[in-house]
């Protein structure tokens, strides 16, 4: 019964928190540009509007399946990502599993975009995968370092280990260098400037989203909510001690995303090769130093 509640609640909570994260991202951007920004319910309006479109153009069965894989993959990821009070199925799949489950929606999206037969979309996916290769190299160094440091890949245990002694036992305190590298990789993972090579509206017409309309686009908006939430929660779980309750937990998640959206607005866009070079030089280098410290300790 608890499990059933977890299965239903975890994705729902993720979605609602994700909506708030999207709202925060847009509000922060507006404030930095000295605008008022969108109203409170804007993310909901956008999604409902897109689902309520009266014509829904599809580019074949794979295009539809992609949308299902997109939502299904993220719903699964949320269920394997423990949050305060909701452990879900985190016992049955660990951090490594979660990282790879998170790639399922990406693969789904990539396949759907490919079947749209639009080169803008294909270029977008090509760049998105390249960016993934770029930011995942430091990210796996961070993950491996963290797992070795905690001695487990079980996310519930990782949270418990960090909560033993308050902020002093948080990952960010015990391995600050790895945590910093993780933050840089997280920023790349969110696909914000200067790493938004695969959206690049003025260059490849929003890449993967080029041919997306109606509920297809709506699913992508939903995916954005899930993505912000997952990335924020994962970082909080790994380095900020998770949270005993939602009151302590959510501010940390928002803080992680806030750092990213706050810095993103002052940047332009890198070229694809510069993203790779930067990601493989700085975050990877820092992460390797952090890893060395973990191994020496």
């Amino acid at each position, binding site marked *: 019964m608890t499990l059933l509640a977890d299965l239903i609640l975890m994705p729902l909570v993720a979605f609602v928190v994700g909506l708030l994260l999207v709202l925060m991202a*847009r509000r922060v951007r*507006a404030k930095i*540009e*000295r*605008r*008022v*920004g*969108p*109203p409170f*319910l*804007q993310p*909901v*309006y*956008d999604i*409902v*509007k*897109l689902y*309520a*479109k*009266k*014509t*829904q*153009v599809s580019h074949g069965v794979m295009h539809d399946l992609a949308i299902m894989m997109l939502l299904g993959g993220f719903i699964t990821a949320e269920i394997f990502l423990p949050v305060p009070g909701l452990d879900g199925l985190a016992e049955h799949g660990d951090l490594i599993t979660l990282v790879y489950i998170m790639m399922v929606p990406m693969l789904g999206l990539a396949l759907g975009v490919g079947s749209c037969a639009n080169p803008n979309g294909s270029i977008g996916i090509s760049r998105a995968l390249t960016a993934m290769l770029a930011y995942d190299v430091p990210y796996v160094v961070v993950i491996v370092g963290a797992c070795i440091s905690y001695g487990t890949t079980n996310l519930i245990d990782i949270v418990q280990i960090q909560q033993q002694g308050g902020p002093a036992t948080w990952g960010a305190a015990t391995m600050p260098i790895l945590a910093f590298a993780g933050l840089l990789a997280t920023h790349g993972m969110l696909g914000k400037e200067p790493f938004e090579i695969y959206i690049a*509206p003025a260059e490849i*017409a*929003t890449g993967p*989203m*080029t*041919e*997306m*309309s*109606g509920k297809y*686009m709506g699913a992508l908006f939903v995916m954005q909510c899930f993505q912000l939430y997952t990335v924020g929660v994962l970082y909080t779980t790994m380095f900020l001690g998770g949270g005993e309750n939602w009151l302590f937990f959510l501010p940390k998640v928002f803080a992680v995303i806030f750092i990213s959206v706050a810095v993103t607005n002052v940047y332009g866009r890198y070229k694809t090769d510069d993203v790779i070079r930067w990601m493989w030089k700085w975050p990877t280098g820092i992460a390797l130093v952090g890893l060395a410290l973990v191994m020496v300790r």
Partner: protein
Amino acid sequence: MSDTTPVIPDQPEVCRTVDAEERGVWRRVMDRFADHCRARSLFVLHYCTGCGAIELPPTITSRFDMERVGVSPMVTPRQADILLITGYLSVKTLKRVILSYEQMQSPKYVLGFGSCTINGGMYWNSYATVKRLDQYIPADGFIAGCMPRPEAVQQVFLDLMKKIDAGQANAWQDYYLNYDRYLGNQMALFGEEWHTPVDVIAEAEHYGYVGDGTRGRFTEILDRHAAYALRDAPEDYPERGANERLLP
């Protein structure tokens, strides 16, 4: 969709015809809710061929901030709700506008920006520009002036929102219901070989927007393209085989 009468082929006989106005409360509440959200989330595709584009940056950015009311720019027609034609259209660009319009998903709204889209404006006697936008695609609103100020642009957005919220911004249905007339006007300008890759009639049939004016003598000309099979098409025939519906 209250003012349309979808034509459903082979409708089974029922004791009495259900009036569209009489549909379930749930459905009406949902429609109302959807219209409410539609009015508050408008993605705009700027067709910036004319000089009016210069008025859009202030409308969007910090001076007037259209995101306050849920209006934000989008990149491709697939994603957009509003097609904003910012100024004059030459015959050549009109083709692209029509294609972009057809690739947008309904409900979709067209706003003509500046006098040029209303009566040709300062290009009223040019051989190469289009005088009236709404002869070729159905428009929901116009902004008069040359140039209109950002305040005027905002005003037309707000008016459109009111119309959408009330469920009255239905010009897009006219394109399906009277496709033949619009196609006729387009053919008058571009010639009889004119067609886009978008299959408007199939779409209208699929979603039940077929009216008396959907098919007519101009769509018959369109059907003649069936003769141009993919490989039999003459080399010089433009856009041959573009419309797969028209292939044998």
